[in-house]
């Protein structure tokens, strides 16, 4: 075996496969590449991929000789992954080519359908550790890529035309409009005119469409004055050139379009590998094994009907509410509730859709169709039918005032010149509209938020779009989910220190703690479960002392378990400061040692909560769990109000709605599917995710679980963003006043516009980028303190 050790049989199998195909370079790129292969590989798992209807839904193109298909591989995480996935053709000759997109975590595979089936391709991927994420929705293709391309075409054309027009305008400026050479001036002007046409009709089309849409909805968005400025600039320039009066403002005009397009592109860059629009269909399997006349057949989940008998194997998800008919069910509802402890079910029990079977195969009778299940019903709520009102192209409330002020200035100028010198009406009014372009205003928001979006991303808060920053800044109420959000999904860490316990003693402690419902007792009991069986021991006495501990008599041994004070007045106290709990053990009057249960709450959550309270945020906690941890949570929040347990997904949604009816701006932090409704209803829904490969419900942002502790700093940064925008607005208004002072006098020359326009745009872009990066230093400081205190 070449003296190589493997963590598990799965990894060894992968190595053997790679070695056989001379692909061991894979192991050279990273120190310990690869994903821990899941080991047991259920062959029947992908049987549904033999179904012609499902195949047709998944593949993008198929002919006799090749089939194209794309998969999402959430496990892709390093350069070795890319290497392995792009060399699939060496492992399996049926695969013609595979191309990965690392950022989208996608692989595009071309294979020969005569040599290998789709199911085999997926099984190969799953075998080497990259189980594709196959969704029911895959049939709908996403048109996003072609849209981005169009944006780039627009920018490219605008950039080309703008820079050439600028070059050709230089002679005009340097000669102060007196080019001696006959015909040269006109040549430059006409060249500029023809170069500006593609900008007006192609590149700027998006701005005109947006302005037109805004007007039709009777909403004066900022694209309206922008479109007007472009039209006036181009119109007046064309008039001057055609009538031979001058060179026009075409360099400024095309510059506006170019800068605006860049700003938009910068702001709209999003995170490709994250999906913010998932509904339950993303979680649910595509196919299921149905038992019909004693034969197992694979059908798509959508065809599942009431009364069907289905087989669910180990690690498979129950696709619809069903009754357990046969087998031992151990259902893991972590997808639904975030609670990771599996629940045992008896024959005849109802198992909700979304639960995952852990153990042997079970047989179920479907009682409701997949779309009518308890958990999926949430999506029938109206909230999922309307789209959240966050516009992708940013519209600031101030834009209305800006537009109104601009028209006021233009009209006043016109009226003034009508009395003084009517020949100056047209030049001055058009100059006002040209120079008071909302360009710099728009650039300040797009670049501030665009840059902040990236900085948030670096701090592992991934926002759906820049509009979310604006909503984040307005938040005044924060709702937390418990499991998976303020607590970690894994079990608490437990270790024992003291005299070594014998198996007999362990069994006694286990029995005693098993009597208590206290979360700490339960944790110790769980921790000991793998040790000794308690069979044969009798419990003679048991009493629990709230907040102190328990005493019991087991098999004649007096057991005292609890805080230091409770056990034997040792100086050691039960510490519950956020780092963990110390549980001391006394057997027959002899002090044995203590268990340390380290906190399963997220690091820094107490700091974050205190900080948020100081900043006058209203905090709530909604948990789907029972109230076993009520005391700890109340201590954490230092409040008894606003902490609710036993909340159904619908309850959570309703609570958020109620808060919003009180005019509160609600931020929801949650993970499981049971938070999906609340995340959707809230003003900003942030899904908490511990691994980038983990799937999160529909939301406005995704945050890495480790960053919950700095949520206060992130919110503070969002509020800072507003101030930066305000500061840059002030600067852009200064520029506008300078420009307008020329314009109203009717003395705005093309050269002034040509200098003012790029200077204002560039200086504002630099200012906001600098400020937003500077303020982010506070954010990274918070993260650093966080890791130091941890």
């Amino acid at each position, binding site marked *: 075996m070449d003296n190589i050790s493997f963590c598990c049989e799965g990894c060894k199998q992968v190595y053997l496969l790679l070695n056989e*195909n*001379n692909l061991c*370079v894979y192991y050279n790129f990273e120190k310990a590449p690869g994903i821990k292969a899941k080991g047991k590989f259920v062959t029947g798992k992908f049987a549904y991929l033999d179904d012609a209807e499902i195949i047709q839904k998944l593949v993008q193109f198929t002919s006799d000789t090749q089939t194209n298909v794309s998969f999402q591989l959430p496990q892709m995480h390093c350069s070795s992954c890319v290497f392995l996935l*792009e060399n699939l053709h060496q492992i399996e*000759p049926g695969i013609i080519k595979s191309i990965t997109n690392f*950022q989208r975590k996608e692989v595009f595979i071309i294979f020969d359908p005569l040599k290998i089936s789709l199911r085999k391709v997926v099984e190969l991927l799953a075998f080497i550790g990259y189980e594709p994420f196959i969704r029911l929705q895959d049939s709908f293709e996403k048109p996003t890529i072609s849209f981005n391309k169009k944006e780039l075409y627009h920018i490219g054309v605008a950039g*080309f035309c703008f*820079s050439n027009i600028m070059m050709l305008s230089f002679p005009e400026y340097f000669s102060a409009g007196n080019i001696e050479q006959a015909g*040269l001036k006109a040549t430059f002007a006409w060249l500029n005119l023809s170069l500006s046409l593609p900008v007006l009709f192609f590149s700027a089309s998006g701005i005109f469409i947006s302005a037109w849409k805004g007007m039709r909805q009777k909403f004066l968005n900022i694209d309206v004055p922008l479109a007007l400025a472009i039209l006036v600039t181009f119109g007046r320039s064309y008039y001057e050139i055609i009538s031979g009066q001058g060179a026009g403002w075409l360099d400024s005009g095309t510059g506006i379009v170019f800068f605006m397009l860049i700003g938009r592109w910068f702001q709209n860059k999003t995170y490709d590998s994250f999906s913010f629009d998932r509904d339950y269909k993303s979680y649910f399997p595509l196919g299921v094994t149905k038992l019909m006349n004693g034969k197992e057949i694979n059908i798509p989940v959508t065809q599942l009907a009431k009364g069907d008998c289905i087989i669910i194997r180990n690690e498979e998800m129950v696709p619809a509410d069903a009754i357990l008919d046969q087998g031992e069910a151990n259902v893991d509802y972590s997808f639904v509730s975030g609670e990771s402890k599996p629940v045992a079910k008896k024959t005849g029990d109802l198992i909700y859709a979304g639960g995952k079977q852990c153990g042997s195969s079970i047989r179920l009778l479907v009682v409701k169709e997949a779309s009518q299940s308890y958990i999926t019903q949430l999506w029938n709520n109206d909230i999922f039918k309307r789209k959240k009102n966050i516009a992708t192209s940013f519209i600031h409330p101030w834009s209305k005032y800006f537009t109104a002020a601009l028209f006021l200035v233009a009209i006043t100028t016109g009226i003034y010149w009508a009395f003084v010198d009517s020949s100056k009406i047209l030049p001055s009014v058009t100059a006002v509209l040209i120079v008071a372009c909302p360009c710099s205003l728009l650039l300040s928001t797009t670049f501030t938020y665009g840059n902040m979006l990236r900085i948030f991303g670096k701090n592992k808060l991934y926002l759906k779009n820049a509009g979310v920053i604006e909503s984040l800044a307005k938040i005044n109420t924060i709702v937390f989910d418990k499991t998976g959000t303020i607590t970690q999904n894994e079990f608490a860490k437990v270790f024992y220190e003291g005299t070594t316990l014998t198996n007999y003693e362990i069994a006694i402690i286990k029995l005693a703690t098993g009597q208590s419902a206290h979360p700490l007792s339960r944790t110790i009991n769980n921790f000991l479960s793998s040790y000794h069986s308690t069979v044969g021991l009798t419990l003679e006495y048991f009493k629990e002392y709230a907040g102190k501990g328990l005493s019991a008599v087991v098999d004649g041994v007096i057991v005292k378990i609890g805080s230091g004070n409770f056990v034997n007045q040792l100086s050691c106290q039960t510490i519950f400061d956020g780092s963990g709990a110390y549980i001391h053990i006394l057997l027959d009057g002899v002090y044995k040692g203590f268990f340390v249960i380290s906190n399963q709450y997220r690091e820094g959550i107490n700091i974050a909560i205190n900080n948020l309270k100081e900043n006058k945020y209203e905090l709530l906690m909604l948990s789907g769990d029972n109230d076993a941890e009520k005391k700890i949570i109340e201590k954490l929040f230092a409040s008894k109000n606003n902490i609710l347990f036993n909340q159904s997904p619908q309850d959570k949604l309703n609570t958020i709605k109620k808060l919003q009816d009180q005019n509160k701006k609600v931020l929801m932090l949650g993970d499981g599917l049971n938070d999906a409704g609340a995340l959707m209803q809230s003003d900003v829904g942030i899904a908490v995710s511990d691994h980038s490969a983990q799937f999160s419900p529909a939301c406005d942002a995704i945050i890495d679980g480790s960053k919950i502790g700095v949520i206060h700093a992130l919110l503070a940064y969002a509020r800072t963003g507003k101030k930066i925008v305000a500061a840059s607005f002030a600067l852009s208004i200064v520029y506008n006043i300078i420009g307008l002072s020329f314009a109203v006098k009717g003395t705005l020359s093309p050269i002034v516009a040509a200098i003012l326009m790029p200077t204002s745009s560039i200086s504002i872009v630099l200012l906001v980028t600098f400020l937003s990066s500077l303020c982010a230093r506070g954010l990274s400081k918070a993260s650093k303190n966080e890791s130091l205190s941890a």
Partner: protein
Amino acid sequence: MSALFILIGISILVAGSFLIAFLWSVRNGQYEDDYTPSIRILFDNTAEPTKTEPSTKPLIQTK
């Protein structure tokens, strides 16, 4: 003077060729994935010989 007219024409042609190159690269999908190619370049061709050398392993024999 006519030299100036020719030069202007040439300058626009040169700039235009860059524009065309840009549009072609967008169309060609070079901006769709701006990260994976940087990883791909790290792979040297050590794995390639399996393609050309006649292999004894049945998995690789395509025909």
